[in-house]
């Protein structure tokens, strides 16, 4: 495991936060590994990212091609299959790009895939022990991975702390000539930006956020009443938007909005990492959930085990009496 590769997600010439997290994760797999960043893209923006990455990775493999200007996973995968040595260990962030490319790449490299890894617990011969979660984070599991034929590992964003990345001065190596034929059957068209909603939850200091525990569309009124009494706004987790009970613009999470409130009331929300990933700025989190084992209780500052359908109206009443 002398060399570990990390695929760098970047946009507008700036590497994603996960770029340094992958370097930290790689060192956790093998503290003596030499780290290679793989950066695909096109033109000046690519050069800017490569130069930045050389401060943290011993080698930076640059792959410059017009066809890679937008990170279409099908195109990137083809280039990586041509460029990476056999039996490579390759890390991706488990974001919407990593999910798009990782599983298929592992098949094409004839290596093993491990998804959404949150920790590593050492290597014994050709067995790497990693930690991941199942059932939306309700339980964790150790997995033993056979790395003898190489591995594609998707790393959960935000769990390996980027500030532990060690600085170095790496070499940038141009691998563009090895990318090979990049014709694919999926063509990127455009990005459609999220529609703005009636309220901007990203600018609110206090959010009353609801999840599955609200049970029915008619019950949303309970949360709205509380928000009104508190001078707050109602936000939500993904299932509420999937059910079309609230607008997408109200959704907190990696696939929704990133919010920075001072106070966050998580009402009937289990606390999946995709949801918590949209919560920044270290808010004071109050979790109200009838399931004492909900992961949100591990992450909140204050917890209340209660059915929100009973608890929220009582809380609203008391606040209105003040």
């Amino acid at each position, binding site marked *: 495991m002398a060399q570990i590769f990390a695929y760098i997600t970047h946009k507008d010439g700036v590497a994603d936060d996960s770029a340094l997290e992958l370097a930290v994760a790689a060192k956790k797999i093998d503290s003596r590994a030499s780290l290679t960043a793989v950066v695909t893209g096109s033109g000046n923006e690519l050069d800017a990212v490569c130069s930045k990455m050389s401060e943290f990775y011993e080698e930076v493999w640059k792959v410059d091609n017009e066809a890679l200007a937008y990170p*279409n*996973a*099908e195109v990137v995968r083809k280039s990586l299959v041509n460029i990476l040595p056999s039996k490579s260990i390759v890390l991706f962030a488990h*974001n*919407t*790009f990593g*999910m798009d490319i*990782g*599983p*298929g790449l592992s*098949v094409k490299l004839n290596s093993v*895939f491990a998804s959404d890894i949150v920790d590593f617990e050492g290597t014994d011969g050709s067995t790497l022990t990693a*930690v*991941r*979660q*199942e*059932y939306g984070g309700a*339980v964790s*599991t*150790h997995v*033993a991975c*056979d790395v003898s034929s190489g591995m594609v590992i998707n790393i959960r964003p935000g769990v390996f702390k980027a500030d532990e990345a060690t600085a170095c001065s790496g070499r940038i190596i141009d691998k563009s000539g090895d990318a090979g034929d990049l014709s694919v059957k*999926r*063509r*990127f*068209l*455009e*990005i*459609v*930006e*999220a529609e703005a909603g009636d309220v901007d939850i990203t600018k609110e*200091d206090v959010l009353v956020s609801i999840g599955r525990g609200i049970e029915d569309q008619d019950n949303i009124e309970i949360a709205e009443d509380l928000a009104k009494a*508190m001078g*707050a706004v109602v936000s939500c987790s*993904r*299932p509420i*938007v999937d059910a*079309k009970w609230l607008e*997408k613009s109200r959704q907190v999470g990696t*696939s929704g*909005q990133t919010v920075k409130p*001072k*106070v966050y*009331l998580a009402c009937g929300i289990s606390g999946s990492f995709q949801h918590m990933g949209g919560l920044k700025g270290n808010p*004071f989190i*109050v*979790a109200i959930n009838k399931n004492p*084992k909900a992961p949100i*209780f*591990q*992450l909140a*500052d*204050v*917890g*209340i*085990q*209660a059915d929100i359908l009973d608890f929220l109206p*009582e*809380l609203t009443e*008391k606040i209105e009496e003040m």
Partner: protein
Amino acid sequence: MEILVCVKRVPDTSENEIELNSAGNDIEREDLVYSVNEWDNYAVEEAIQMVDKVGGNVTVVTVGDDEAEEVLRREMAMGANNGLLLSDQAFEESDGRGIATILKAAAEKGNYDLILTGAQADDNAAQVGGMLAAMLDLPYASLVNDIEVIDDKKLKIGREIEGGNQEMNEIELPCVLSIQTGINEPRYVGIRGIRKVASVDIPIQNASDLGVDSGLTGEVGTRVKRLDYFVPELGEGAEMLEGSAEEIIEKLIELLKAKGGLK
């Protein structure tokens, strides 16, 4: 359009609290309510809506035992035309790669224009669709939240990406797509619907029918082995407010005031 939708029977997390068993080597499976994986249900609904528009058939397939058949029947009650159960002792305990290998064999026995999977299932791995596409050498897109049929050669699809944005792509048929929740509103299935398909014959195929190498599936074929289940201590955890409802509310209001949560 001939559409194959891959589905999985999973513990229903909205009906169960997922907990460790007393031995700590599995989740507590006593009294668990199972249902079709939520993502897969959206995929089946999408397939049915597509076939309603452009014609064709929807086949739902699963890898599992006799109990998995109920999930196929449920999806057929929604409107899927055919069910297919892939069942063999050699398939038990397969990892994602093993499941994709079995599904690949089944897909090759049919003549499908489009293969759908859910974006993820109970193990949160989000892997089978991408592996299946690569094994079949078909184009793939994950986290699909919009599908428009352009003609019998290609689709226009939207992928859900970060920040609530959508990445639009054109993709050639045949292809494999993994479906994100929220793409549609899956129809309700009543008891009457289930009864109507209760006696429909669902063919079963095993490893030799499919020509699957038994070394690649089941526990033998597993290269990512689950060792245990556990519940980690994440940080210190929340300070739980205890007492009567009035006492809890009083404490909470004090805290909210102190933290700027009340205006």
